[in-house]
């Protein structure tokens, strides 16, 4: 697919197959279009004025850009976590319950249970279980990010997109998030953008390397890191540019 911001083309002929129940890492220098690509996967780019694409994105062999697709339903199936944690200015509980609230679920015990399960999955439950009614804004950065993951899990998505979820965090929080991702890949298909090559190596099975809006190389992480096929990839990984 190709992607345009107005007249500026940000993605060129990307053709990438994302494997199920595995972590795929997207790496590449700044501004190469990783975020743009990620956001194309749940059509978040639609929000931005003047964007345009050609080509298809298939989810279960269904083109998500097809005319009759319901974007809202799509986004429910394809969750997303952002670089900067974006807790809603509400209580911790309400943050996680938000997805259910908007889906119109009124069953209180179900909501309660799901919130608990998701917070547990996001490895946050123990830290917040006594203060679910507190504002989410009072949490630390790492906790907020995990809360955002829990919130995304609560809508029961199939795919989880993460755009540098740990780049704003301290090493301890980063480690927790990484553990979490490894945990989650049992059940979810995860696509993660990262600047941190070590991180990509640690958590992902597959890695795709982007450069200047093009997909340069994609392969098993181990392979890509140790035996990159392309010169560009090698340069980037060994830190010779970027």
């Amino acid at each position, binding site marked *: 697919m190709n992607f345009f911001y107005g007249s500026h083309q940000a993605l060129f002929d990307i053709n990438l197959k994302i494997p199920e129940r595995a972590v795929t890492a997207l790496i590449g220098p700044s501004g190469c279009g990783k975020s743009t690509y990620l956001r194309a996967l749940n059509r978040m780019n639609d*929000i931005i*004025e003047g964007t345009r694409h050609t080509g298809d994105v298939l989810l279960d062999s269904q083109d998500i850009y097809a005319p009759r697709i319901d974007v809202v339903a799509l986004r429910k199936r394809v969750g997303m976590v*952002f670089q900067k944690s*974006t807790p809603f200015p509400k209580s911790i509980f309400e943050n996680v319950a*938000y997805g259910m609230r*908007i*889906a119109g679920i009124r069953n209180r015990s179900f909501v309660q249970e799901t919130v608990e399960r998701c917070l547990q999955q996001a490895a946050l439950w123990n830290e917040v279980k006594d203060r679910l009614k507190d504002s989410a804004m009072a949490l630390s950065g790492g906790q907020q990010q995990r809360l955002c993951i829990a919130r*995304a899990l609560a809508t029961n998505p199939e795919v989880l997109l993460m755009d540098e979820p740990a780049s704003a965090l301290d090493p301890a929080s980063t480690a927790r998030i990484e553990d979490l991702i490894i945990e989650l890949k049992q059940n979810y298909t995860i696509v993660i953008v990262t600047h941190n090559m070590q991180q990509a190596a640690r958590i992902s099975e597959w890695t795709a390397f982007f450069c200047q809006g093009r997909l340069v190389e994609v392969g098993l992480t181990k392979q890509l890191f140790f035996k990159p096929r392309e010169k560009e990839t090698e340069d980037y990984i060994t830190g010779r540019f970027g």
Partner: protein
Amino acid sequence: MIEESFDSELARRHRYGMIFEWVCWLATWGSVVILGVLIATMAWQAMGWLTPKFLVSMPRRNPADAGILPGIVGTFWLILLTAVLSVPLGVGAAIYLEEYSKPTLLTKFIQLNIANLAGVPSIVYGILGFTAFVRMFGLAKSEYLINLGIGSLQLTLPFGRTVISGALTLALLSLPVVIIASQEALRSVPPSLRHASLALGATKWQTIWHQVLPSALPGMMTGVILAMSRAIGETAPLVAIGAATYITFTPGRLNSVSEAFTRPDKLAQVPFDSFTTIPMQIYGWINEAKPEFQHVAAAAILVLLVILLISNGLAIFIRQHFQKKVRW
């Protein structure tokens, strides 16, 4: 050459700078002092006239007995109705313009139009209100007596010089101000909040309703309160629609607060009854020739200023507490 000139001029430049700073200082604090003088002279003029009795009495031809009860009650109903009419419409328009509209020619036009409406003189709104609501262009003419079971509601078309005409006029007048303030409040909500909500599969309206509006609320409230306190002081449009200056009853003939609950028919009559407001009464008294009425007017002005100080203070309080706006 430049050195000599620079050095010889430096002292003079510093002096200019001092004078300039002093003049700027004076302009600012001078204006503040004028506000003080204004309030002080009103208080001085009102001394001895602003009594508790003044607040609960009807206007009388004898200045010593005159009061502003109908004005206070009229202002209350008028602003309540104005807010009920203009706030949802204004906030709705702001939401449309900020959240839904694409920058088409139409939205640009609407935007420019709103900015212009905010600058249309209030007396022009008065003429519009008079023609459209008081007279209804002279087209309609009918009277209805609607039986409410507990009493009857008298409704005339056109609305005439009633609370509803005033409220509709003031609602149109404050609409642009409400829209502009609400837009600003919406703009200060970070886009990341919207993106997060949308990414969870929320629809646009759900995002607005659950996330954007609550976050924008303090800012909107500030804007709305300021717009309404401006409306409280409006006089020209009410003169234009012909609100009374002298009236000895309150809208709906409600004689006490409890009657608002026990007599729903009277309550329903409120929008369709004649009224006056504090500024209208002030205008009436200013025009009185008897010198004592000048003191009565000053007393009413003081009441009005206190109401406005409170509402403006409230708006500023909300703004400073909730809106930590960061400027570069």
